[in-house]
């Protein structure tokens, strides 16, 4: 019993959900992640690595150590919250997909070899796209298809890397790999796609805003965090990750400032937060790795909370365009409050969860001598507050009165948001419990006067900048628009060049046909103009009638033969 991988519970539950309905189904949905967490807590021992042989290869579906444990608990917790938030959605495909998706994420972080990882990697891709397609709009279906193609492609890189790795080392163990080998670089690309590295990130900003109101909450929790775990497992201390992480933290905030779709703003800020984790992994010291894991933990909860708040608005209003929202605090006060808690957590206000986790990465940057990197990350921290901390709550719930008076979010949604908000404040004010769960032994405490004062100054003066820019009318207005990103390359340039290429090819075909046919045409014309052309036999004959005539002649010849020789 103790070696039963927790994902099995989710997959069995998915089957049960198909067979049941009504209240029973809802109970199964809620009980599964709770049961999985209890199972991990009580039945599985730390250091478990349960290998089994499959076709002479050693695989392992269950490896519980100090790195996989926090992610395993985190995914169970996220699954509970997302399930409560989606409790009133009676859609079998989303319910089954939620279980398979969460189960696969759990399977991926507990996998001990690259092939098992690959299987869960692809299952996550396939199950998660359901949340985008379930929206049912044409845009969602197109975006889902693009999302799926990129996700599957990531799996292809992973499988190729795993096979090359096996060829070279004879091992499929999912351990430190590094960038020194071809296999290492292939797997790095696979992880990088799911981790939303710059230029490989568009599936996220394209797909997540098109998902259902409840689906984005699931999506934001698992895929990128599995990738963060995988990077921490296999590429900790690779210096290039520091610079990739800094880029990820910085460039999306510019898009977030000008983006109108508030869930897309959150998608960009998701990349920004993952940037902090990637940087921590790149630094690779005990403090930095702890920071990366801790921040993944806080991020899943506060980003989930923000996506839930926007999901509630989407559910009640039908859209989340900043330009057409405002004043919702009047009728959705509780959602407003929860959104503000999420906003303060992501902005790393003291006493909120972001503060106790992000600061570990920031401190590690200083300790390891990345002074300029630290400056960029400080810029990114101020920027997060600007777009996620202020812009999201301000444009949705305050700003100008849009005249919209939607009802408060349903009870189950409020409960889910309340839970997430409570966890944000709990982690922020009692960080020792989160710290105890982290993979490394580190003596770190975020609360000292210097740090609190510095952070408060940074945040309050970022807010002051917002107030000042708004009063001066310098703040960019929310406009309904599309902002070009790396996806422009495959959504506009590639199709346009493909069409152009096709038209060039068809022109070439036309021209070459004309050139090749010209002499034949000339002969035909000269015959048709000659004096014999007046006789009907000189006309051009169709192939069919020629064949017919030849057949008739041959038949006549045969008949003659039979008559002449047969009689003699």
């Amino acid at each position, binding site marked *: 019993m103790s070696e039963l991988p927790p994902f099995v519970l989710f997959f069995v539950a998915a089957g049960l959900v198909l067979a049941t309905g009504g209240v029973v189904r809802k109970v199964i949905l809620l009980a599964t992640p709770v049961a999985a967490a209890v199972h991990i807590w009580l039945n599985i021992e730390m250091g478990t690595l349960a290998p089994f042989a499959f076709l002479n290869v050693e695989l392992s579906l269950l490896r519980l150590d100090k790195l996989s444990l926090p992610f395993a608990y985190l995914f169970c917790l996220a699954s509970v919250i997302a399930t409560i938030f989606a409790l009133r959605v009676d859609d079998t495909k989303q319910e089954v997909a939620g279980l398979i998706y969460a189960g696969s994420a759990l399977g991926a972080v507990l996998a001990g070899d690259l092939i098992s990882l690959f299987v869960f990697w692809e299952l996550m891709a396939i199950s998660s796209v359901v949340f985008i397609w379930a929206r049912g709009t044409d845009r969602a279906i197109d975006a889902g298809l693009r999302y799926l193609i990129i996700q599957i492609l990531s799996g292809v890189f992973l499988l190729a890397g795993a096979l090359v790795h096996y060829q070279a080392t004879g091992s499929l163990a999912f351990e430190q790999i590094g960038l020194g080998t071809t296999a290492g670089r292939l797997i790095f690309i696979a992880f990088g796609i799911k981790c939303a590295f710059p230029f490989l990130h568009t599936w996220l900003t394209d797909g997540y805003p098109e998902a259902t109101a409840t689906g984005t909450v699931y999506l934001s929790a698992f895929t990128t965090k599995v990738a963060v775990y995988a990077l921490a497992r296999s590429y900790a201390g690779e210096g290039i990750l520091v610079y990739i992480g800094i880029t990820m933290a910085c460039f999306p905030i510019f898009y977030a400032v000008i983006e109108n779709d508030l869930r897309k703003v959150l998608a960009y800020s998701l990349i920004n937060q993952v940037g902090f984790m990637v940087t921590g992994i790149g630094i690779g010291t005990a403090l930095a790795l702890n920071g990366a894991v801790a921040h993944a933990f806080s991020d899943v909860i506060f980003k989930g909370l923000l996506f839930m708040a926007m999901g509630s608005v989407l559910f009640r209003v039908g859209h989340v365009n900043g330009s057409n929202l405002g004043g919702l605090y009047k009728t959705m006060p509780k959602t407003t409050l929860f959104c503000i808690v999420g906003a303060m957590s992501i902005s790393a206000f003291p006493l909120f969860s972001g503060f106790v986790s992000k600061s570990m990465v920031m401190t590690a940057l200083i300790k390891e001598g990345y002074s300029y990197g630290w400056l960029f990350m400080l810029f990114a921290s101020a920027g997060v507050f600007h777009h996620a901390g202020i812009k999201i709550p301000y444009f949705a719930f305050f700003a100008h009165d849009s005249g919209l008076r939607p009802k408060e979010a349903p009870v189950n949604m409020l409960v889910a948001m309340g839970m997430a908000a409570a966890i944000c404040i709990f982690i922020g004010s009692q960080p020792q419990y989160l710290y105890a769960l982290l993979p490394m032994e580190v003596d770190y405490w975020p609360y000292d006067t210097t740090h609190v004062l510095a952070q408060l100054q940074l945040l*309050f*003066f970022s807010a002051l*900048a917002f107030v000042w820019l708004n009063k001066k009318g310098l703040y960019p207005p929310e406009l309904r628009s599309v902002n070009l990103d790396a996806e422009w390359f495959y959504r506009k340039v590639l199709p346009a060049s493909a069409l152009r290429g096709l038209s060039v090819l068809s022109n070439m075909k036309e021209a070459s046909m004309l050139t090749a046919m010209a002499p034949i045409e000339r002969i035909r014309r000269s015959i048709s103009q000659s004096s014999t052309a007046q006789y009907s036999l000189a006309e051009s004959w169709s192939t069919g009638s020629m064949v017919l005539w030849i057949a008739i002649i041959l038949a006549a010849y045969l008949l003659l033969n039979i008559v002449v020789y047969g009689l003699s």
Partner: protein
Amino acid sequence: MSDNLDKKHIFDDPKNVQRLLNGFYAVCALLVVVDFFIHRHISLVWEKIPAFYAIYGFVACVVLVILAKVMRKGVMRGENYYDE
């Protein structure tokens, strides 16, 4: 619904907005004043600048917004750009 529309809410009164802002300005001022009395641990040279974090936060956000506005000229397209 009409009840809700007619009901006065807290920020419908500009006085309340101004009160909130005044409180906010006061906290900002306080944070800068405190900086001169509390000794911060310094790890980097930049941190020696008085109220470094306050200045950096303000400047960073203004630069961010201005750059983003400039960026809009380059990347902004109509809402149905990709569907055309």
